[in-house]
């Protein structure tokens, strides 16, 4: 049994600003608040770069392009046929399957080091949740989901919370604390 499983939570808004920062256990160096802000900004930038570094992007783009060409070709072909026969069938419905768009690049999701593990969850709106755990912690995905749920319930539904501003919500703090304590004590 090592130290605490979940060490810290950081929330970064879509502009790279640190809006929440909380430490639950030992295992990481304590930084001053300015360093945490720098860290959040740096991570935001690195995350954007890691999303661009997809080694298969050209392959996927070419595949998509070929599919699209094929689709357009078959669609225009069926359209021409329909007009010559007097617009009988629903035009375009018999064209090939819609080309599937390649999955958008995700950026850094998990980082491992010798002393800790960092899980990053990027929401649809660009808010990033960083969960620092020790290297042995399992089921971080589940914990992350729950943290996001708490955020949705107690931060986003708080009428006094201003978007993109630092999170100061008592209920969120309390619920988060009791959930993380539950995880850390169950080990």
């Amino acid at each position, binding site marked *: 049994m090592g130290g605490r499983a979940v060490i810290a939570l950081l929330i970064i808004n879509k502009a790279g600003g640190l809006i929440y920062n909380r430490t639950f256990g030992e295992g*990481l*160096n304590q*930084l001053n608040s300015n*360093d945490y802000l720098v*860290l959040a900004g*740096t*991570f935001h*930038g*690195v995350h954007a*770069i*890691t*999303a*661009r*570094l*997809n*080694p*298969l*992007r*050209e*392959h996927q783009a*070419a595949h998509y392009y070929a599919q699209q060409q094929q689709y357009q070709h078959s669609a225009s072909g069926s359209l021409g046929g329909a007009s010559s026969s007097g617009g009988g069938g629903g035009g375009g419905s018999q064209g090939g399957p819609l080309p599937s768009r390649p*999955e958008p*690049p*995700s*950026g*850094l*999701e*998990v*980082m*491992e*080091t*010798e*002393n*800790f593990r960092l899980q990053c969850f990027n929401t649809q709106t660009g808010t990033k949740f960083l969960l*620092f755990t020790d290297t042995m912690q399992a089921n971080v995905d589940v914990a992350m989901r729950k943290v996001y749920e708490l955020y949705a319930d107690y931060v986003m539904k708080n009428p006094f919370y201003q978007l993109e501003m630092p999170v100061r919500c008592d209920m969120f703090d309390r619920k988060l604390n009791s959930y993380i304590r539950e995880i850390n004590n169950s080990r």
Partner: protein
Amino acid sequence: MPVQVFSFYIFDRHSHGGGAYRDSRSAATRAKDDAKLIFGTVFSLRNMVRKLGGDDDAFISYRTAQYKLHYYETPSSLRFAMLTEPGALSMRNVLHQIYINLWVEYVVKNPLSPVEHKNGDGVRNEMFEMGLDKRDEGGPASLNRGATDAASV
């Protein structure tokens, strides 16, 4: 189980894309631009990890949905970075073996090899590249065999 390796980079302590070696199966052609981005990423993450985890902490790898980057740094600040498929297990020992069995053997011990590889020319060492290609085809098993061979010599 073969692991798909997309690309492999070595950076010296001056951040020149020392020996940027690219896997032939990779579809990427912008290797040189990528090398700069990868160096920047790895450099930032390493500093971040040192700050948070203490000076003895070392950055090992990160994963996205599309790929996984493995990292190994020697005490002389030579940095190895390898991009593989996201499901790959830790390749740290593989990078370490590449350093010991290929880099030290063929590049460091080569009297004609320059001390520093400048201008991004790459290592251009036939034996080194051959070794990389071989271990690339053979997978980790062949590498382990190479390791024991080297130890017994």
